[in-house]
């Protein structure tokens, strides 16, 4: 293929709300290009939603990146003739500057996505080569360790950590300094420092990103922690599903050993500390401290009752500190820039920054790090770019399967450990799944329960049996067979699982159900009483119907129906047999006249 010197991107608003838009612009553009013998030299791309609904149809001409808005059939001709053939952009069709600002940005750091972020844990991610220890050293890597080992006593290190106000980023939010202090106070010659890299929340990938992009910061922080608590051996527990992270960690450990930054006499100070990797098999429950310890010991990954806490009796019965990857990655800057600097960021009770993994119905999926106290609205709309396709925001699920859903009215809540708990959700590891108006909240609760039911280790009955029963009731409701008593049962059962379960998994598993019951009770009632799914998601409750007025009788739907549920004569309105229909939606997809409606 010859190099195509130009590219034209056309967005005709076909899948968004720009109802006024002419959907034939692409066809006209293709015809005009062929007519002018340009078809070979120009790549024509029909784009999905550009989120520029009010300007559509939009035609963008590259390489100049000129954006034409509200393009009509006659404009297509002008763009091809004047711009593509003659080489002069059609000024009169370009959206005025104040209406549509369009620009090229060579440096990615200047876009809104990055402008409002404060990067501490992710400070080196994407900046340095993760496989080159020298590059980490060049960004002040291992300097915090050098400072700690040569100028501070273990007690001073712990004081500094407490002063910084850093709280665990893995979900619990326990103050890291206090955790270290408990372990340091134990009179034992053998102690362990563990990095918890068993990131299991669906939709959370910040730990993976840190381990893959900046592994040395985790090694450095673990060594600092080892010095503080009096440990000489660390373990990184990382899931085997993260092969790139495991490979880079292994390489980083070897490099650090070669430089003497791990080993018997670190930086010539006499302090000894080494780190080994332990692979997890990806069980969600192994993110829980005691289950993780059992897994490292070679036992089945199941939790133990606490107390004793790991800081007193952990790995092989020895005092053990377990810190999450993101927590650890935040530690070196605290010692380089001081606890006061760190505690000046964030809010009264939640210090520093938090990384969030944005996913679901949001324009900018990805990882963002913001100061604690930033509002949900800022994260979702300012940084995350809002909801695609001009849809309305419905809810945000924070904290993964352990968290809950938060609605529009609470979007201005500052993000803190305690505020999120008050809203019936939690910080968790920082997954944020954004949901638009087309999401069924009963189905969301069902999805999370399906996950926790699978991941329950089975040791205690409230979690093992309770999550299955919750799921059964939810499935019953989504099938349209629920009763109002079921809603009470959901709430009672959920509350009981919370108080009676052994570990965090069971104690939080009902949260998605309870919070959706709380905020979207109407939706549950619609499923139960009216046998209706307002979002049109629950298959059993959706009915397809052909609008006799709009149907032209072309027969495409009948031809494509996999179960032959559609009948009708050609050129007369067709009919769907609801009993035969399997709700696959094919008829609606293939209909050229938008005649198939769901209700």
């Amino acid at each position: 293929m010859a190099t195509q010197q130009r590219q034209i991107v056309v967005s005709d608003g076909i899948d968004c709300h720009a109802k006024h838009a002419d959907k034939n612009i692409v066809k006209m553009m293709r015809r005009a290009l062929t007519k002018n013998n340009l078809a070979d030299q120009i790549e024509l791309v029909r784009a999905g939603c550009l989120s520029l609904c009010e300007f559509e149809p939009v035609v963008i001409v590259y390489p100049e990146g000129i954006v034409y808005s509200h393009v009509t059939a006659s404009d297509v001709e002008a763009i091809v003739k004047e711009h593509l053939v003659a080489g002069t952009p059609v000024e009169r069709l370009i959206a005025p500057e104040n209406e549509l600002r369009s620009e090229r940005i060579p440096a990615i750091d200047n876009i809104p996505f990055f402008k409002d972020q404060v990067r501490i844990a992710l400070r080196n991610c994407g900046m340095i080569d993760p496989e080159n220890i020298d590059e980490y050293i060049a960004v002040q890597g291992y300097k915090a360790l050098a400072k700690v080992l040569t100028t501070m006593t273990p007690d001073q290190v712990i004081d500094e950590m407490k002063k910084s106000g850093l709280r665990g980023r893995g979900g619990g939010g326990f103050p890291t300094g206090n955790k270290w202090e408990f372990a340091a106070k134990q009179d034992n010659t053998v102690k362990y420092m563990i990095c918890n890299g068993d990131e299991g929340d669906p939709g959370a990938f910040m730990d993976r990103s840190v381990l893959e992009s900046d592994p040395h910061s985790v090694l450095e922080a673990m060594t600092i922690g080892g010095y503080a608590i009096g440990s000489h051996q660390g373990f990184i527990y990382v899931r085997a599903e993260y092969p790139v992270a495991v490979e880079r960690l292994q390489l980083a450990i070897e490099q650090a050993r070669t430089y003497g930054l791990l080993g018997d006499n670190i930086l010539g100070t006499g302090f000894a500390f080494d780190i080994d990797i332990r692979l997890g098999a990806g069980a969600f429950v192994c993110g829980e401290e005691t289950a993780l310890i059992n897994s490292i010991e070679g036992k089945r990954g199941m939790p133990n009752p606490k107390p004793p806490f790991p800081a007193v009796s952990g790995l092989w019965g020895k005092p053990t500190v377990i810190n999450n990857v993101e927590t650890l990655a935040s530690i070196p800057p605290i010692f380089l820039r001081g606890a006061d600097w760190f505690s000046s960021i964030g809010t009264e009770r939640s210090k520093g920054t938090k990384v969030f993994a944005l996913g679901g119905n949001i324009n900018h999926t990805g990882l963002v790090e913001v100061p604690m106290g930033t509002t949900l609205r800022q994260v979702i709309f300012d940084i995350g770019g809002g909801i695609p396709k001009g849809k309305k925001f419905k809810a945000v699920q924070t904290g993964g399967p352990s968290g809950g859903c938060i609605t529009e009215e609470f979007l201005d809540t500052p993000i803190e450990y305690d505020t999120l708990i008050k809203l019936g959700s939690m910080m968790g590891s920082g997954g944020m799944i954004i949901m638009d108006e087309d999401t069924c909240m009963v189905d969301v609760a069902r999805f999370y329960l399906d996950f926790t039911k699978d991941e329950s280790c089975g040791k205690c009955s409230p979690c093992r049996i309770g999550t299955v029963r919750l799921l059964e009731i939810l499935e019953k409701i989504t099938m349209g067979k629920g009763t109002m008593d079921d809603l009470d049962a959901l709430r009672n059962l959920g509350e009981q699982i919370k108080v009676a379960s052994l570990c965090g998994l069971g104690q939080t598993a009902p949260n998605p159900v309870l919070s959706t019951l709380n905020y979207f009770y109407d939706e549950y009632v619609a499923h139960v009483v009216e046998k209706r799914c307002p979002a049109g998601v629950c298959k059993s409750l959706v009915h397809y119907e052909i609008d006799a007025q709009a149907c032209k009788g072309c027969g495409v739907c009948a031809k494509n129906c996999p179960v032959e549920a559609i009948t009708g004569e050609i050129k007369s309105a067709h009919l769907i047999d609801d009993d035969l229909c399997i709700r696959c939606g094919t008829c609606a997809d293939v209909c050229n006249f938008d005649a198939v409606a769901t209700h």
Partner: protein
Amino acid sequence: MITIEDLDIIAQKTKDRIDQSPARTVIRIATCMATGGIAAGSQAIMDLMHTRFDGSTDVEVQVVKKGCVGMCRLDPLVDVLVPGNEKVTYVKMDKERMQRVIEEHILGGQVVAEYTLHVANDHLLNDYTVLEA
């Protein structure tokens, strides 16, 4: 085994390598090689550059892996740092596009603007989904 003084020496020696500003002295091409980048095909870009800059060219180029900046949907991302110029980030790259960037930008000194971010009213226009070619 290194000492604390050695840390400073290494940092000093490596400072230019990681310099993201125009003050740097050697060309650096950093490709996102975290999971998101790899999944989007960045290994092919790395392979191409290792073949292209195998030491036989006159131009000195650092071909390095970089981690994740969090913009995984625009992967593979490639940073091109040329001394005397601001950093340029290319998005949604592939082998063919990289070939052009190598010839026109890295060897020719001309930024290939169409592979950089294009933003209109804060919406990234490179981020569209292709419905049909």
